[in-house]
C-alpha cells in the first residue's frame, strides 16, 4: 500500500482521511499483506476450491414467465418529475 493507491481508494470510496488516518490505514494494509505472505509460505492453496460464499447456500431460480404486476403510474407516484411516461432527470450528456 502506498500513498498513491490510498489516494485512489479515498476517491473511489468518497473518503477524506487525515494524514494520521492515512498512516494508520497504510500500516494496517501492510500488516495484512504480511499475513498473506505468511499464509502463502506455509500453505499450498493451489488445489483448494475457491470459497464463493461464507454459508453453504445457493440461490433459488424462477421460471422464465412474464408477470405484469405494476402500472407505471403507481411506480412514478414518488417521482419528482415525469413527462409522457418518462422519469425526468437533470440533463446529462457525455
Amino acid at each position, binding site marked *: 500500500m502506498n500513498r498513491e493507491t490510498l489516494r485512489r481508494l479515498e476517491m473511489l470510496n468518497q473518503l477524506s482521511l487525515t494524514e494520521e488516518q492515512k498512516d494508520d490505514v497504510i500500516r494496517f494494509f501492510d500488516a495484512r499483506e504480511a499475513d498473506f505472505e505468511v499464509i502463502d509460505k506455509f500453505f499450498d492453496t493451489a488445489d483448494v476450491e475457491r470459497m464463493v*460464499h461464507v454459508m453453504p447456500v445457493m440461490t*433459488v*431460480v424462477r*421460471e*422464465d414467465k412474464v*408477470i405484469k*404486476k405494476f402500472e407505471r403510474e403507481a*411506480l412514478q407516484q414518488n417521482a419528482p418529475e415525469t413527462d409522457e411516461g418518462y422519469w425526468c432527470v437533470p440533463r446529462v*450528456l457525455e
Partner: protein
Amino acid sequence: MRYETVIGLEVHVELATDSKIFCSCSAHSYGAEPNDHVCPACCGMPGMLPVVNRRVVDFGMKAGMMLNCHINRVTTFDKKSYYYPDLPAAYQTTQWFAPVAVNGTVEIDTPAGKKAIRIKQIHMEEDAGKLVHDLREDTTHVDFNRTSVPLIEIVSQPDLSSAAEVEAYLERLKTLLRYARVAECEMAHGTMRCDVNLSIRPEGSTEYGVRTEMKNMNSIEAIKRAIEYETARHIDAVENGTEVLVQETRRWDDVKGKSYAMRTKETAGDYRYFPDPNVMPVVIDDEWYDSIADSLPELPEVKFERYTSEMGLGEYDAEQLTRSIALCECFESAVEVCGSAKDAANWVISEIMSILNTKGMTYDMLTVNGETLGRLIVLVRDGKVGRANARRILADMFDDATIDPEAYAEKMGFIVSNDTGLIESVVKAVVAADPASVAAYKGGREKALMALFGKCMKELRGNCDPQVLRVVLLAEIEKA
C-alpha cells in the same frame, strides 16, 4: 517497420428470454410505451430483491458450451458500481469473480487457414435503461423498459489481428448462438453490440502497445471501418509522433469516419466490484448441466457434411440450408414426411427463402412447420395439387401456421380435378376461341402450344394434372 494489429472484443448479446434477468417484467419492449415493462425491482427501488431467471443461466451455459468453454458449476453475481441515470440502482448486477463460462475457443476461417480465437470468459448481466436527450433542452428522459433485460458478455483474448478476422469471428459467434437459439444476434436491432479493444505492435513482438477501446458499434461494416481508422491512427502516432497514445475509451463516428476520445479508460478498480449479497451463488448440479449439454444442436459444418454425404444434396443447397437452424429444422422435418431431400431442399431454398426475403424476415423468424411443408410436397408429388396452387398454400401458411394443407387445398378448390369431361370441354373452348395459336403451332411455333396450355390451365384454375392436360390439348389441336 511493419506493425501488427492486436484486437480483443467484448461482445454483448441480448438473450432471447421472455422475462428479465432478475424480475418477471417482459424483456421485450419494442414498440412499448416508455416504462411500461417495469417493476420496483428493475426500477432500482430500495429493498427490492432480485430473483434469478433460470433460463438466463440455461442460455449462459449453452453459449459457453457452444464456445467450448469450461462451465463454472458454482457461478456468482457481483455488483459493478457506476453512477448514471440509466442505471437506477447505481450499480449493475453482473459477474466478475466467478462468471458462468471461462476459457473457451472459437475457430474462424482465415486466408491462412483455421485460427482459434480464445475466449476469456462469458458472463451474465443486466442491461441498462435508455436515456432520451432530445425531448426537452433542460432534461434527460429516462426509460427503464430495457433495464434488467438479460445479456451475456463474451470477452475474447487479444487474438484477432485484422478487420477481416473480426468479421469472421462475429459471424461465427452469430451462427453458433443462433443455432443454440439463445439469442437473435441482430446488430441492427441492438441485440448484439460490440466494443473493440485495439493496439499495435511491431511484427513479431510479444509486448502489447497502448490500448484504446471503441464502444457500442452496431454494424460489422462500421466495426471494420473503425478498426482500419484506429490502426492507422496508432501507427501514425508511433511512427510520426502525431499524438501521444493514451489508454482511453473512444467513440466511433461512422458518418465522419473518425474516432473521438470519450473518457480515460476505467480500470476494474474504478467499478468497485463486490459480491452481490442479494443473490446467492448459482449452483449447477449434474442434472442441470447434463440437460443443457444434451440440448446442444448439431453444428452447421456437421449438418453440411451430413446433407452432402448422407442425403445427397449439392454443396450449394447444403450451404443455403445451413445458413439458419430454422431452415435446417424445417428441411429435416419435411424430409421425414415426404422422403425426398432433394424436393424438400428445393421447396425450402426456392420458395421459403424467397418468401422470407420478400417479407423482410430473417431466416430464424420462419414459422412454417416442416412436417406441414412435407405434406404439401407430397400433395404436389402425387399430382393432387398443382405447383402454382401449392405456392399459394405455402404463402398462406406464413400467416397461419395451423393450416392443414389437404383441408386447405380442398377448401380453396385447389385439388386437381380428374374430371376428364371438364378438361375436354375447357380444351375444346380454348382451341375454338384461338385458331391463330392453333395454326401457329401447326406451323412449327412451339411457343403457341404453351400459350394454349396456359389458357386452359387458367380456365381450370390450375387444378389439373399437366400431363393429362397436355395429352388432351394435343389431341384437340390435331382434330382442329
